[in-house]
């Protein structure tokens, strides 16, 4: 018996764009209904299959293009890539929800797919009834559901409400129940999309633990995720998709590195080309605010947590001899200020020769370096401030730009899931063995 569980060979999927908007009358409907069999008859007589959506003049996009790979039995493979790279399309094809346009794939073994948590939940039915319904939808046999029923209920922590209609559940309870059912589907090959992050932090940890169990039990798993730490932890291999093609296939840390390198989008820069319209006054105006990171060309909106983040403020000085300073505020995604920093001599780590010094008219770049492994994962936004020394604000542009900090997994060898805190610096730790105790066991571990 072959040890291949999933074989994907030059799989492609083409979508027609604008199809949904095209207006059709009922007359067209009837004509199409009548014509489709006739066309097929004609095609059969001509000996070649021609389907109605062959019109080459139509606008198409290739969601997947010539994707090939193999997954061995027991392997846990992560699929990463930015939105629209074809990850979900790939899983949909492998789950047989949609057909490929070209290519071939085979799956050897009982397959289960979880593209969504809680598919088919009915609000009017009780928790008990939904477990059976959802289980059946996910491909479980009735006997299987009966056998694991208590386990599902216990996992979801809904024992008291199992006979209450699901519509009276809190969102969190619904999510927990849905994940619990999904987690107890036990196929040989599991296809999962983005179901890792459900519920509160505590339950998320439980979900990830369960995922880890499934992976360790020797199941073949293909998982699509944006959660890089969990990819690093769960997967032995990662595949990077970009514009429908496989860009890289290999060990997760390297593939994630490349991914973060490729997701430099148009973001990462806010620029005003016309000085008369830029924020500011007749003393100073902003030209641009950019996020930069070493090793990447140009501004980026997604940064690697492990490397320094450079915030560059480009500004015009419009008044000869103005004594300018630059500073920033950094906010987290809730808008809570994380820090404020400026280039004033007493508050900056390095001496900035241009702080408070009379500026000639012209363009200046001030750069603030935020160390790597200091911010936590997530979205941060920047306020850019220009002023005249010592402390008169001339320009204050809040939420001028935001960037995303991505965890590459370097700090996640032991832990994964959400990490508490707005910042996540590496701090020094040291533990000493003070004295041996006779009652160590009583004190607990």
């Amino acid at each position, binding site marked *: 018996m072959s040890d291949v569980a999933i*074989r994907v060979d030059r799989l492609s999927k083409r979508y027609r764009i604008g199809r949904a908007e095209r207006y059709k009358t009922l007359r067209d409907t009837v004509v199409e209904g009548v014509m489709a069999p006739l066309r097929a008859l004609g095609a059969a007589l001509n000996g070649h299959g021609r389907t109605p959506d062959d019109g080459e003049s139509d606008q198409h996009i290739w969601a997947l293009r010539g994707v090939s790979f193999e997954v061995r039995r027991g392997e846990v493979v992560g699929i990463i890539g930015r939105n629209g790279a074809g990850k979900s399309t790939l899983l949909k094809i492998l789950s047989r929800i949609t057909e490929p346009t070209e290519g071939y794939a085979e799956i050897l073994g009982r397959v289960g797919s979880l593209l969504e948590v809680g598919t088919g939940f009915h609000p009017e039915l009780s928790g008990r009834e939904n477990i059976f319904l959802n289980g059946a939808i996910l491909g479980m046999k009735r006997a299987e559901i009966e056998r694991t029923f208590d386990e599902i209920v216990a996992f979801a922590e809904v024992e008291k409400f199992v006979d209450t209609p699901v519509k009276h559940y809190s969102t969190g309870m619904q999510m927990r129940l849905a994940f619990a059912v999904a987690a107890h589907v036990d196929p040989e090959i599991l296809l999962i999309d983005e179901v890792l992050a459900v519920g509160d932090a505590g339950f998320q940890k439980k979900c990830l633990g369960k995922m880890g169990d499934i992976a360790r039990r020797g199941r073949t798993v293909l998982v699509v995720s944006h959660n890089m730490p969990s990819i690093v932890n769960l997967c032995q291999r990662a595949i990077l998709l970009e514009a429908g093609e496989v860009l890289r296939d290999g060990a997760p840390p390297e593939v994630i590195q490349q991914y973060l390198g490729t997701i430099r989008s148009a973001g990462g820069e806010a620029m005003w080309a016309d000085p008369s319209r830029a924020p500011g006054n007749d003393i100073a105006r902003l030209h641009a605010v950019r996020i930069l990171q070493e090793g990447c060309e140009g501004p980026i909106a997604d940064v690697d947590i492990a490397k320094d983040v450079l915030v560059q403020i480009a500004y015009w000085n419009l008044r000869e001899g103005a004594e300018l300073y630059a500073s920033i505020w950094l906010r987290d995604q809730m808008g809570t200020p994380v820090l404020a920093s400026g280039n004033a001599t007493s508050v900056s780590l390095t001496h900035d020769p241009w702080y408070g010094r009379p500026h000639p008219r012209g363009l200046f770049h001030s750069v603030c370096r935020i160390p790597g492994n200091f911010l936590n994962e997530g979205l941060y936004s920047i306020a850019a401030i220009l002023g005249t020394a010592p402390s008169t604000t001339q320009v204050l542009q809040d939420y001028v730009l935001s960037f995303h900090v991505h965890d590459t997994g370097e700090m996640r060898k032991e832990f994964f899931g959400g990490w508490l805190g707005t910042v996540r610096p590496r701090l020094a730790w040291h533990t000493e063995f003070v004295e041996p105790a006779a009652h160590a066991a009583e004190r607990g571990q």
Partner: protein
Amino acid sequence: MRSQGRAIAAEPPAAGALASTIVIRPSRGWVALRLRELWEYRELFYFLAWRDIKVRYKQTALGAAWAIIQPFFTMVVFSIFFGQLAKIPSDGLPYPVFAYCALLPWHLFAYALNESANSMVANQQLIKKVYFPRLIVPLAGVLAGLADFGIAFAVLLLLMLYYGIVPTVAIVTLPLFLLLAIAAALAVGLWLSTLNVQYRDVRYVIPFLTQFWLFATPVAYPSSLVPEPWRPLYGLNPMAGVVEGFRWALLGKAEWPGPMIFVSAAMVAALLVSGLFYFRRMERTFADVV
């Protein structure tokens, strides 16, 4: 591109000996019905039908009484206007029983048709996220109307008792006519549900369709109003055969509707088979289009 794709599809699967191997490749043109796979998914079918029945009268004050109210009051209105005022003949039967006996299969048909025609759109979340043979969805939709039928049927028995109508041995054929009504609803429902995926016009067509269809069906009047030579042609409306079959099987006194039934059955068979294949053919694009 195309020729390349077909060349790949022609390759034999390397480990095809495994029973549970799933082969994924683009399908072209008409495809098999795969009834065996449908059978493997029968539990899901039961669950979906069970869900529809269970949920049908949730949060209603009258609950399952609705299953009786609708045909019963239609019967009352028909009896007053068509039976009493318009003096429409009823083949020698008391008009209320005559009408109610026809309204039962009619309501079953109309409900099943509506449910199955809307089923693909109503279950689009499922269709976009889980694989199962899609045929299960309209099939389960058709079945949900049977519970209503059972309840309303009890009332018919009471009416028959009240009017002292004793069914003849013809009653043993009743399941066949019931099956014919369901098959007719499924046949039309398959066509409409497939079209509904792409053209939501269908949703607006259904109420019209059932309304016109009701008047084209001998519910309020007997088919004996139609001249004898035209009656088999009348059977092209499958519900004409079903309704007359019901009266014949249950009420005894009515004449054997004869060839009309066979025309109706043939019509249902043709619509059903074509509907099944049309559905299967369009199935591959459902998740992308719905």
